């Protein structure tokens, strides 16, 4: 359940931003999570509620924007979209893929009072 540790990371960022920018209540936390990242969005939502309790993000809604997995296919010399790491290139069927996008785990924005 590393989602718990990731949620602690999110709350750490939110609290730092609250101190820096002077807000006391967060209504929405918007994350950008890549399809090839280390996160199960459902587990993340489950953990977030527990970790956010008694912080500025208590009761905040967690919104997750999923970004697609993108890889460079060396055989085709072009970018292709993949859903999993073990998927072949959708064009040529090969596995000579270098992941170039979709590994993000980022706090994108906050909706605050």
């Amino acid at each position, binding site marked *: 359940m590393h989602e718990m*540790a990731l949620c602690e990371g999110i709350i750490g960022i939110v609290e730092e931003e609250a101190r820096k920018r002077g807000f006391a209540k967060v209504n929405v936390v918007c994350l950008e999570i890549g399809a090839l990242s280390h996160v199960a969005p459902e587990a993340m939502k489950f953990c977030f509620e527990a970790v956010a309790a008694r912080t500025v993000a208590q009761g905040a809604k967690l919104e997750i924007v999923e970004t697609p997995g993108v890889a460079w296919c060396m055989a085709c010399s072009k970018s292709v979209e993949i859903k999993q790491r073990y998927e072949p290139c959708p064009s040529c069927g090969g596995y000579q893929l270098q992941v170039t996008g979709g590994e993000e785990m980022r706090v994108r924005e906050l909706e605050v009072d």
Partner: protein
Amino acid sequence: MSSDRIIQVERDILGKNDRLAADNRARFRADDVLAFNLVSSPGAGKTSLLVRAVSELKGSFAIGVIEGDQQTSNDAERIRATGVPAIQVNTGKGCHLDAAMVADAYDRLPWLNGGLLFIENVGNLVCPAAFDLGEACKIVVFSTTEGEDKPLKYPDMFAASSLMLINKIDLAPVLDFDLAKTIEYARRVNPNIEVLTVSARTGEGFAAFYAWIRKRAVAMKPATMTAAE
């Protein structure tokens, strides 16, 4: 709701760990220490493999070991029995080591000037993939008693590793283990992963593993030192 405002943040969730990992990496670099992060499922044989490796390499390198487990100091004691210093980190409920834990443990090891640091992560093929510890690279230990399709089931870990050590190779004949298929699956996930077969029990394949380590150790030495050797 008119009082709501949107604040752009754009910060990595693992940013804090990544910064601490970068600090560790700079310290290892300054001490000329080559650090490996060993990952696997529980029972793949990481500790047995390390016991053999540190026993056989301690004449050539200063070596330190950081052992991560949820509970007990059994693994660190097994390493210490070889005469090599080991620090046990208990993560409690945690499922992985993080960069801060490694920084603390490294402080408690003797100075490894020019040596090797082996970090044995918590036995878990999921969570440790996400947490950079500052290592030179991850080594995933896979054993022949596991299914050949494990690289497909846990792709993040095999994608994050530079070397796959296939342990318990002495058992392969009685297991109908398909080595070619395992390597094929691992390279689907990570076309660049290097593969070595070993047996921590018999010592088979360890010479090639040590050669792999020595090649990395030479590659990280400053050019002036390499020239002087």
